[in-house]
């Protein structure tokens, strides 16, 4: 396929190869485009916008937790009734929609959608995705999804601020199945389910595309074990999506049927909800939990594996050193993905399922910490003996490792069933998943934006603003989320509009206020990121093809790459991590550079430890 690219330079496709129109990709963003790079940037900009929306919802939650029942500034005037006071209904909507937006419209699409799209063809030397139209559809269907979510926030049985879906992002029935169960379980829940289904359609189109592209369209010489970790992460994520998502989609339709057609998949008989007539039926609410977590546990890995891959690549480049233990890294990714399918029950230890199941799920869950640990050790090994450049990319990658350690360790507490009896559904869990999802994934994404920005727009982002953004995000993040572990140990339940109703939690108010302050710092710091992205479009230092002296295929294409990506069809001679080879003058060795000497380079020899 990449032979098309050979002619691209001479045809009128290859205009940006001349390096003049650096914003060519950006200019295509508002329009329908089947170019994977444009779609990637469309996803990236959309997810950043959604990040701000989700962040605003989170600040609403934090407001209520630190100033319960006081009028909310700014947002309150727009949304809540009673002069801006957060009502309990509004509060349930806030945290439900915060999680929904962050998971379905930010984390999943920013990894697979934005970076997956932009990087996969470039890193494997293809000229585009296997199915470009499908690819474009996978982006544009995000808008109807976003529309449904927006609709779910305002339409219920009428317009109003308290109308939003109120069953949490997990949407457990019977709360979500029976319209009478909550103010938001009417039409709002319907819109919400429709939104999730559409997001799923988008993910599925992406997933099929990525698998096909990675399997069939690799450049000559790019064997599986020469693929960069980013591609491995994307590939395994695509497989997870393809196998897990149908289950959620099916469950979504079943729940929809329960609500609209009066089936009873999830509704047992005889429930009297809110004085409505007793339900008929014979369903099981636990069925939803099984189906939901059968998807959503693999989904939490969908939300981190690509970031793990990108961080591996960035670290190796920024340390000028080969990735430590490439194959163990690949195998541990695969192990996480494989084990990820048999641990879903750890979300259900307390749910009333058979206690014997709890024991098996505990063992599999605790064992999933093992490949995670192996990855952490290998990342540290990658920095070990390297020559790190302390730039924004590297700092964000180190933050990724440092935060992932915390998230992995807190996972073990909850995986231990007896301990989980106490900490389940407390703030301990909230701390855990923010450390893995924000602390790890989002810092990885911040690094990745900085790293691949020159490829997207032919200019660097500002280092100074990037460091300030990193510093404020990191400090704000830890100030917000580290204390949540302690709140969890203190027994503060999650999803409470007013925990201070309980005497044993009253004294936690000042700590919560501190956390809200930190959250504001973190939230407003994101404007620096946005400013940096926008200003660098016009004023950033100009970058060439390979601004970081990196080895990957994407760096042999022009910045930004023209339609068809490569002006010279790449042929791959080695893996992507040959930095600082002792026999070479320069400290990097691009994958496409033909070997100088005909004799093969021994790569697996025992190397001396750094002096």
């Amino acid at each position, binding site marked *: 396929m990449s032979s098309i690219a050979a002619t691209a330079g001479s045809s009128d496709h290859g205009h940006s190869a001349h390096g003049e129109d650096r914003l060519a990709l950006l200019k295509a963003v508002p329009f329908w485009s089947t170019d994977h790079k444009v779609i990637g940037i469309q996803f990236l900009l959309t997810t950043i916008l959604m990040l701000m929306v989700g962040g605003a919802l989170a600040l609403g939650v934090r407001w209520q937790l630190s100033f319960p029942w006081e009028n909310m500034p700014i947002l309150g005037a727009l949304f809540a009734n009673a002069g801006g006071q957060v009502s309990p209904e509004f509060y349930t909507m806030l945290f439900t929609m915060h999680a929904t937006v962050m998971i379905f419209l930010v984390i999943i699409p920013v990894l697979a959608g934005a970076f997956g799209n932009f990087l996969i063809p470039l890193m494997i030397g293809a000229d585009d995705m296997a199915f470009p139209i499908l690819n474009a559809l996978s982006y544009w269907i995000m808008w109807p999804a976003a529309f449904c979510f927006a609709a779910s926030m305002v339409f219920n049985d009428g317009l109003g601020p308290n109308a939003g879906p109120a069953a949490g992002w997990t949407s457990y029935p019977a709360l979500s199945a029976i319209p009478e169960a909550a103010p938001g379980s009417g039409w709002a829940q319907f819109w919400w389910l429709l939104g999730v289904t559409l997001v799923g359609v988008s993910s599925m189109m992406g997933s099929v595309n990525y698998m096909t592209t990675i399997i069939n369209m690799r450049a000559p010489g790019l064997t599986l074990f020469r693929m960069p970790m980013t591609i491995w992460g994307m590939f395994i994520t695509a497989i997870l999506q393809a196998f897990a998502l149908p289950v959620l989609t099916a469950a979504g339709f079943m729940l929809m049927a329960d609500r609209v057609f009066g089936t009873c998949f999830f509704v047992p008989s005889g429930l009297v909800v809110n004085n409505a007539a007793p339900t008929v039926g014979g369903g099981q609410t636990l069925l939803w939990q099984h189906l939901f977590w059968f998807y959503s546990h693999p989904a939490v890995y969908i939300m981190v594996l690509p970031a793990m891959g990108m961080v591996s690549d960035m670290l190796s480049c920024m340390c000028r050193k080969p990735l430590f233990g490439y194959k163990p890294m690949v195998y541990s990714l695969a192990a996480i993905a494989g084990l990820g399918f048999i641990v879903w029950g750890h979300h259900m230890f307390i749910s009333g399922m058979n206690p014997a199941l709890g024991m098996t799920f505990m063992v599999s869950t*605790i064992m999933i910490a093992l490949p995670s640990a192996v990855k952490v050790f290998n990342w540290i090994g990658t920095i070990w*003996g390297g020559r790190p450049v302390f730039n924004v990319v590297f700092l964000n990658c180190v933050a990724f490792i440092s935060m992932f350690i915390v998230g992995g360790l807190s996972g073990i507490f909850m995986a231990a069933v007896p301990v989980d009896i106490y900490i389940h559904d407390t703030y301990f869990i909230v701390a855990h998943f923010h450390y893995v999802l924000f602390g790890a994934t989002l810092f990885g994404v911040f690094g990745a934006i900085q790293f691949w920005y020159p490829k997207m727009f032919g200019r660097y982002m500002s280092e100074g603003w990037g460091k300030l953004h990193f510093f404020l995000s990191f400090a704000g993040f830890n100030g917000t989320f580290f204390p949540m572990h302690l709140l969890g140990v203190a027994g503060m339940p999650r999803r409470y509009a007013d925990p201070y109703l309980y005497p044993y939690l009253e004294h936690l108010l000042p700590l919560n206020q501190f956390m809200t302050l930190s959250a504001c710092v973190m939230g407003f710091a994101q404007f620096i990121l946005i400013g940096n992205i926008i200003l660098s479009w016009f004023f950033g230092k100009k970058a060439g093809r390979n601004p970081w002296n990196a080895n990957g295929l994407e760096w042999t294409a022009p910045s930004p790459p023209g339609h068809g990506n490569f002006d010279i069809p790449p042929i791959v001679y080695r893996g992507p991590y040959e930095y600082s080879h002792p026999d070479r003058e320069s400290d990097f060795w691009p994958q496409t550079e033909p070997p100088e000497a005909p004799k093969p380079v021994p790569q697996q020899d025992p190397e001396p430890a750094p002096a």
Partner: protein
Amino acid sequence: MKWFWCCFFTFWPILAVIVCLASPSLGWWFPGASASPLGERIDDLFYMILIISAITFIGTQAGLAYVLFRGAADTDKDPSHKAWFSHGSHELEVIWSVVPAFILLFIALYQMDVWAEYRVKDAFPQQKMRSVLERLGQERDEDSSLALAEVTARQFEWRIRYPGFDPETGDLLPLMPEPQATDLYAVNDLHLPSSSPVMINLKTMDVQHSFFLPELRIKQDAVPGLVIPIWLEANEQRTYQLLCAELCGWGHYKMKARFVAESEEDFLDYLHRLHEEQNYDRVENSEDVAAE
């Protein structure tokens, strides 16, 4: 600048450890020592994992700090001296896979007993439960329920059903699966004998809820369509908090109730009081009048 960042990544784990060490004295820790024997064992398991993960946390963060400082120092040296060209080490991979594997497996297996005792019905301390019921003078036979009360959650309150007294003998009856005319009811106020294991049945009338006694470290979801037995044992005779831990609607945060652990005599007195309240102004009174 690079030294600043090295210190930065060293500083935050130190701060985290200090905060954790200080938090019990600041009140950001367990709501008191566990008030039940099983809870004490849960706390012990928590502390065991805490110690193991604190060691891992400090070890890995120290390793990270070391490689950062080391890298920063090395870049100052002769720039022609390149990074260590290493693709990894087989020995290290084996060590750092096998050692954590054993530690993790140990953690997993070590939890089993407590979990079984908490949830697996055969491992419940049934003998002790039976003797409490006998001490309360319950008219039991072989297959009478071991449960002393039934807790039914609903939006947004806890309804409690106790067995009543035999109208003939005045003795406590066993709890029946279906409500009986003699049953006694209370709302948001669960009374049970202290200092020995007692079992209750957990149900819900509408959506999911979760029965959470933080001081006793007990939590169990109430699931529509299921009756879930849980048992508890309060060490002290006092009042504990009972709250809901599973999102059940807008009023989830206000499913506030209390659990009163009291002596067996006080518990029987309480049931008698409930009995009198529920039957006040009815049968007895008119019978009294008729007798005169």
